[in-house]
Every structure is written in C-alpha cells, then in structure tokens.
C-alpha cells in the first residue's frame, strides 16, 4: 500500500505539471452538454433522459482519462523503472485506479454543477447526497475496469482504440446501474434517495470486478 501511495503521488504530481488530461475531460463534458442541448432541442431535461445524458457524458470523458493512464509509463520507460524496484507490483495498478478515481471525482465536481446549470430542469440541491453516492459507486467501477483495460491496451498497437472497444461493453452493467440510479433523482419532485436496487447492483459489480482485477493484475505485469 505504501508503494501505491508513492506511485500515486508521482502521478498526481505529473498531472499537476502537465495539466492536460483533467482540463480535457472537463472541457469535453461541458461541450457535450452544449451539443446535447442542440441535439435534443430542449432547454431543460429531467428524469431518466437527464440521467442518460449525464451518465453518457461522464463515461466518454472518463474514456479520455483512461486512454492516457499508462501512456507516460509506456513512452518514458516508467514501466521498466517500476519493475526494477523491489516492490509489490500490483501497487502500480492500485495506484493508477486510485488516480483515475480521483480524476473522475474532480471531473464530476465541475461537470455536475455545470450540468445542473446548463441542462437540468429540477433543482439539484436536495438530491445531491444521493447523486454523489451513485456517482461514487459508478466511479469505482469505472476506475477498476478503466485501469484494467488501459493496462491491456497500452501494449497493443491500436492503443487509443482498443481501450474503449474493450472497456465499454464491460462497463455496461455499471452504466445501467448509474443511469437507473440517478434517473429518479433527477425527476421533478424527486425524493432524494436513490433506489436501493441499483445501489446494490453497483456495489456488487464493483466488488466482483475489483476482486477479479486484483487477481489478474499480477499477470499483466509479470516478467515476460
């Protein structure tokens, strides 16, 4: 775990220095909201439609982040440097997953209010805790799968393409859970608590894939 924190700190420092990925994700989200406004030809949306727009936008913004997750390691020898160290190798992937999670949280802190301002009809204040809960659970799933997929994709030739192509189908249950969990919250006169069924599904999905990924991560970094 200590190793994971060392790598995480390095990654956050790199992002702070380079400052490319996060701004791109945020910008992409906001532009997408604008496109949806024109595409749907509506000033406000609510309910399940709003949930769909928000979820899909966050998903594709996440894809940008996922594509970049291991690029620096691959291109600047970060893998070798890490593999030479006498540390637990799974820590690299744990660190990347946490980094991705943090990116997603920061993204949502900006994108969700932007969404509320630009597109959402009903007020968001009351449902914010419930919304945060669903999104956080969704983020865990996206971080785990995103890291796994990114680690696979970085060794392929079609790096930017393979990641989303593999990742999107794997993420579908998490997306269903997120969209359906958020839907009732964004309806007019919403109650404020997300449906328990979908929280349970998201939690189950996160748990299963976190355990599974942890088990297979080793094989992705093994001596070749």
């Amino acid at each position, binding site marked *: 775990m200590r*190793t994971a924190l060392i790598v995480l700190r390095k990654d956050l420092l*790199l992002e702070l220095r380079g400052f490319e990925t996060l701004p791109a994700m945020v910008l992409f989200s906001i532009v997408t909201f604008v496109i949806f406004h024109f595409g749907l030809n509506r000033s406000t949306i609510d309910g399940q439609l709003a949930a769909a727009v928000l979820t899909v936008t966050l998903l594709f913004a996440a894809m940008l982040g996922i594509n970049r997750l291991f690029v620096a390691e691959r291109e*600047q020898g*970060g893998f*070798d440097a890490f*593999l*030479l160290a006498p*540390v637990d190798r799974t820590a690299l992937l744990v660190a990347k997953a946490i980094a991705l999670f943090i990116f997603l949280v920061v993204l949502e802190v900006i994108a969700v209010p932007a969404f509320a301002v630009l597109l959402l009809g009903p007020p968001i204040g009351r449902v914010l805790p419930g919304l945060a809960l669903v999104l956080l659970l969704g983020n865990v799933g996206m971080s785990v799968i995103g890291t796994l997929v990114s680690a696979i994709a970085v060794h392929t030739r079609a790096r930017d393409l393979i990641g989303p192509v593999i990742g999107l189908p794997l993420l579908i249950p998490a997306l269903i859970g997120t969209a359906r969990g958020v839907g009732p919250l964004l309806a007019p006169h919403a109650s404020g608590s997300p449906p328990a069924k979908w929280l349970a599904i998201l939690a189950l999905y996160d748990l299963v894939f976190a355990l599974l990924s942890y088990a297979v991560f080793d094989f992705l970094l093994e*001596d070749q």
Partner: protein
Amino acid sequence: MDQPPAIELRGLARQFGERTALRNVSARVPAGATLAVLGHNGAGKSTLLRILATLLRPHEGEVVVLGEPLPRRAFAVRGQLGLLAHEPLLYRDLSGRENLQYHARLHGATPERVEEVLAAVGMERRADEPVRQLSRGMVQRLAVCRAVLHEPKLLLLDEPRANLDPAASELVEPLIGRAAGVTRVLTSHDPQAALAEADIVLGLRNGRPAYVGAPGQLDAGKLAELYG
C-alpha cells in the same frame, strides 16, 4: 575465490516468438569483476542485460545473480541491481530531483543520498528544471544517478558513455567505473573502450557465444568476426 560469483549463466536461452535471441550462453563473473559484452547490433546484448536485470525471463538454462536463481528469486535480488539502459527512465515533465526522489522512495534510499549523487555528477544546480529542458548529456548524468541511487551491488550498463562529453564522463566514472568497486556488466559500441575496462569478455554473434574469456586473448581477427 571466497565469495560466490556475482553472476553465473549456464546454457541460457531466450526466444522472442519464433526468433532466437540468445542460445546456450554460459559465463561466470566473479564478485567485483567487470564483464564486457560485445557484438554487433541485434546480437543479443541488450536482451542479456534485461534478463540479468530481471525484466525478462530466461526460457532455458540457469541464471544465478548475486546468489539468487532467476526468475524464482527475482524479487530478492531486484533491489541490488542498477540498470543504465538505452532509455533514461525519467519522466520528462518532472524535474531531475523529483524523478530521483520518486526512485529513492521506491528503492528505499534517503533524500540525502539523492543530493549526494546529484552533487557527484555536478547536476545539483539544474536538478529542479523539467527533464524535458535538459541536454542529452545532462539527462544521461541523471540516468546514472538513478542507476546508482540505491547503491547496487551489480551494475548493468548499456552504452554508459553515450552522450557524455569527456568532462561528464569523468564525473560519472567514480559512480559507474571500475573505481566504484562493484561487479559490472557493460556493453558498448566501442569495443576498444570496453576491452580496456574488462576482466572478462563475452562475445555474442546472433545470440550465440562466439568468445568467452580474458580480454587479452581477443585478437583483432576474432574481434572483426564479432562485428562483421
């Protein structure tokens, strides 16, 4: 010899897909000695180095580094190896100091050691600039720092003098040269320079050992064969 040899190779072989990169390589390097690996491009020098660095697995044969058989005990020996590779293995957006601090934390070296090596190569003043902005010679010096940061017992040096002017070369000498007093394996495009430093020479041709022995017995004819 009282001490066990630093490196023992017996019948080492490694393939990449269908291509054989190394075949039947055997050598014995006593502790503290320097092994020079010579050969033309693609002869398998870098592959051998990477296997010794535990970055690649041997497919056949035995590899024992610092008393530990690889790949089974790779974990035990990793912290005692220092690799200077083709790539500097530094993040271009971070400064030299930040890069070294990252590596220090990974290897369990102290911040004081970071400052020590930076001073030794004369980079202490420019250590806070992003690596992206430094010249190749400076980057190479930082790479040397990275390799010796954790005071390894075995140095694996792939073209160590590349990009270094004579002044810089002198600066790194105590860290990675004979004076460092550790076992070294080095490859070089300049066979004469490598021979001058070597106790043992391993010549590779198409992955197979063409010569194993003392540098003195490697005459010009055999040398031409290796690089021909």
